[in-house]
């Protein structure tokens, strides 16, 4: 057995020994992944996982290193990038990821990515034009 294999075994038997806790946080993360477009609160997530919201906060942070709401925000920003790349408008993207205000979405998007959604979308569009152009050029060559 290599050193790394023995470390995996050690960590599994110490850090990840509580399967009940793991099932709870994995289930809640999965719930967020499938319902990020809805209004999600800590109370609702805790109710879904049949645990108290304080316990949920502690467990989620323990296993994922961030709170459920921080994870939800990350998920929404990640999905919004995909929607913007697909050509959805800022408002459509905002509502598709569960935000109610395009202004607050734009502010959050800029704070996370360094660009406004409009700038991000323009950049993606120009990159895909360059890519398509170079493919066309290669095709002609």
């Amino acid at each position, binding site marked *: 057995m*290599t050193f*790394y294999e023995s470390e*995996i075994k050690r*960590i599994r038997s110490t*850090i*990840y020994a509580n399967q009940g806790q*793991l099932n709870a946080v994995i289930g809640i*993360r999965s719930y967020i992944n499938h319902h990020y477009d809805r209004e999600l609160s800590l109370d609702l997530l805790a109710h879904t996982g049949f645990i108290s919201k304080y316990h949920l906060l502690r467990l989620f942070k323990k*296993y994922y290193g961030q709170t459920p709401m921080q994870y939800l925000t990350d998920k929404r920003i990640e999905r919004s990038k995909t929607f913007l790349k697909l050509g959805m408008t800022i408002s459509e993207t905002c509502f598709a990821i569960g935000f109610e205000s395009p202004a607050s979405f734009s502010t959050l998007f800029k704070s996370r990515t360094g660009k406004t959604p409009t700038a991000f979308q323009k950049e993606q569009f120009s990159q895909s034009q360059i*890519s398509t152009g170079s493919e066309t050029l290669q095709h002609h060559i």
Partner: protein
Amino acid sequence: MKVKIISIPVRNQETALNFYTGKLGFVKKTDVPLGEDRWLTVVSKEEQDGPELLLEPAPNHFEPARVYQEALFNAGIPYTQFNVEDVQQEYERLLSLGVAFSIQPTEMGTVKIAIFDDTCGNHIQIVEMR
């Protein structure tokens, strides 16, 4: 500061390019001749504007790099890891392409992992978040 390039030490750049593009599915981004070697980078096909992997031949030119790479390899430690949607599916795809795994898909708490040999001196870990 931004993360633009991550280096992976490789024994042979051409072998590495073939493995990382042909088997793993990365796309060549930059290939600049530098004497005997090349400034050679690849990117994820799904994220071509994302971080570049620099396939650098340090183990061939700098003895401590070779020793370090060999020690990590012998200990089974993956130098680098890549995220995938489904470890089991990727494991089966790579296995069918002849890639050798040192650790089969294994659940480890909130992640599932598997580790393969990149044929260039490294163990690479693939990870699925659960």
